């Protein structure tokens, strides 16, 4: 990658030694302290680190463009990210009534993944979340698209301040809106309506929708649009030759992101629902989570909810990352 800076032999050897010692220490801790079967996980990680150390010594004096510090960093990143995720899976696959004490999901039972789909609070909550966050997302996208368009063009007066307002709403502690939203719904006699919960939820959906849509429009090749327009294209042609190929996919991804961002909000959902059968998914999981016996359901529901987003992220990962990170 970065041809200019070749790692020195000394830095490679240092990284190798650190990796090896780290692996050695982990192997010892794994063998002495950690009970089985997690010992094997520790040993596996330890072996990877120790092998890194050995390989590092072997390649130290070559012209290969490999930074061993970076390899070590990536290995630690993998551990750091995946170990807790494995624990979520272990929690979800424990048998009903018992609690998981090992990181390794031994004796896995998958019943929790089915149970959350059986009629019950979690399924109801998924429906509620789908309805509330879905409706809020649709409305937010419908108003965010023209707003982002206006914010993109320099001639809208005060556009910068409006944009700051949307970004401020993005980081507003939304839980403070919970109580007034609940009170307002109560005053309008809408407290038992799940549909009405979508309106206060717009406070979560709209700012992220505007922010993301602005990013999409910023990335779009507007010179192409100007060219299309200069050619005297009709609105339909402009849509077909510019909007669909260059915007549609990104806007679709944004819609998905807005939906999941909105559906992840826990405070508003918990605050607005006066009764437990009206709670959104995170609020229901919050209530379920108070009892450690239900952790398996919480974890299973969380993994189900994660699945579609991970699929989307896998398929469109490059696009998503450049959308979010650039």
């Amino acid at each position, binding site marked *: 990658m970065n041809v200019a800076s070749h790692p020195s032999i000394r830095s490679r050897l240092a990284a190798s030694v650190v990796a090896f010692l780290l692996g050695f220490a982990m192997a010892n801790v794994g063998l002495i302290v950690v009970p089985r079967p997690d010992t094997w996980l520790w040993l596996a990680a330890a072996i990877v680190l120790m092998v890194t150390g050995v390989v590092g010594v072997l390649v130290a004096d070559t012209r290969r463009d490999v930074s061993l510090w970076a390899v070590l960093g990536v290995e630690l990143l993998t551990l750091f990210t995946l170990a807790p995720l494995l624990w979520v899976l272990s929690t979800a696959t424990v048998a009903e009534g018992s609690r998981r004490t090992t990181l390794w999901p031994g004796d896995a039972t998958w019943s929790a993944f089915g149970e959350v789909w059986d009629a019950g609070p979690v399924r*109801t909550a998924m*429906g*509620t979340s*789908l*309805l509330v966050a*879905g*409706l809020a997302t*649709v409305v937010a996208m419908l108003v965010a698209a023209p707003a982002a368009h206006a914010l993109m063009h320099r001639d809208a007066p005060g556009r910068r301040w409006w944009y700051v307002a949307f970004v401020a709403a993005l980081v507003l502690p939304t839980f403070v809106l919970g109580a007034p939203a609940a009170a307002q719904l*109560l005053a309008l006699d809408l*407290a*038992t309506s*799940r*549909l009405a919960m979508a309106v206060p939820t717009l406070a979560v959906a709209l700012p992220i929708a505007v922010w993301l849509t602005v990013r999409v429009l910023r990335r779009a090749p507007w010179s192409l649009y100007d060219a299309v327009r200069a050619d005297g294209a009709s609105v339909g042609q402009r849509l*077909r030759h510019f909007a*669909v*190929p260059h915007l*549609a996919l990104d806007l*679709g991804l944004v819609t998905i992101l807005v939906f999941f961002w909105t559906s992840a909000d826990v405070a508003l959902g918990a605050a607005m629902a*006066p*009764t*437990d*059968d*009206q709670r959104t998914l995170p609020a229901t999981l919050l209530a379920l989570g108070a009892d450690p016996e239900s952790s398996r359901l919480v974890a299973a529901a969380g993994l189900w909810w994660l699945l579609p987003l991970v699929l989307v992220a896998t398929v469109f990962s490059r696009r998503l990352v450049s959308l979010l990170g650039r």
Partner: protein
Amino acid sequence: MSRGGRVARTALTTVALVLVASACGSSSSDDPSVVRWYVAAGDVGSTALAETCEPSLGEDLSLEVVELPADPDALHTTLVRRLDADPSSVDLMTLDGALVPELGTAGFLAPVPSAARTALADGVLPQALEQTVVDDRMVAAPWLFDPQLLWFRNVTAERAGLDVTKPIAWADLISGARRLGVSVQMTDDLGSGLVDWVSALVASSGGTLLQGAGPDAKVGLGGAPGRQAAALVQQVAESGVGPGPDAAAVEAFAGIDGGFLLAPGTAYTDPSLTALQPELGVVQYPRVGETEAVPPARGTVLAVSAGSRHRSEVFDLVQCLAADETVASIVLSTGHAPARPAVLADRSVRSALPFARTLAAAQKAARPAPVTPYWTAVRRAVVDTWSPISGVTTDRTPTDSQAAVRAALRGELP
């Protein structure tokens, strides 16, 4: 139309279908022919009672028992928010009498119709009846009234050198238990064990936890009775005779180190004690000084939601549930004490329930939670300042607790 347009249209249709589907799958709490009876989780065998008394609702209505959380804070919030938002989704509630002033003041509870009043109020213990009256209107039916008693194994009391024919003092109880290396357990029914204990100790020391109903009520924790209560709590904590009020108290009492148990009559029928029943002895709640003890008590009432669509039928149901025969069967099967002493005086109950006399005597002396709409706030403040009991000191806890309760009454942070 282009391909993109078709995709978008299909996506929109799908979203719309999903939304419609989930909007239609709304909650089942709208069925008008169902009467919903809310009970705290783990409460008296409501399901069995529901079957006994369901016919009094008439043919068109069916009864459904709905459980509320067992945690007192969660129960309170759940109930208040539901009654506030959707009063018609609640018909009948089994409530701790301490909650009636608050829910009654808010207008959530239907006044007892005059036709039913005599049947529900006559012969009821005055302390139990007092809890159900808000602004001179009776808004709940007194049902059960459970004072705490001191349970022990006969052998243990003997070996501890306690004279069970006379009222037992806390000091003797603690030292006796300590000498034998046995524990003094206290129940924590529905999370109110600690506040019950503190208020009983204050009352037994000649004080009153709370006097008056408004936010300016007089708090009685800072003075001599409060210090005396704190001294006793501290003594229990330091002597290591038990963890204080605890949800697993009855099981611990049944265990090998169990010596004494402070619990209402329901302990007698607890599954873990059935084998021990023949060896069990029971006396009045221990006294603090020389004066008579004031046992803590919980009143359980039946309250009808003001939003109920079937008020008169539900009051018929309440009359069935509170009828002497029904209550007598509850007393015999669960060990609960009735709000109407006549039920305990009945010969068949007396002969079947060995401790009926002790229970009746305890009921007379017992004091339930103070009548105030701010009870939940007071309870939370007391629990916050007196737990863990290992942190209780005579010079700090009473004054801290006094300040915390006063702040809670005013709706402030401690």
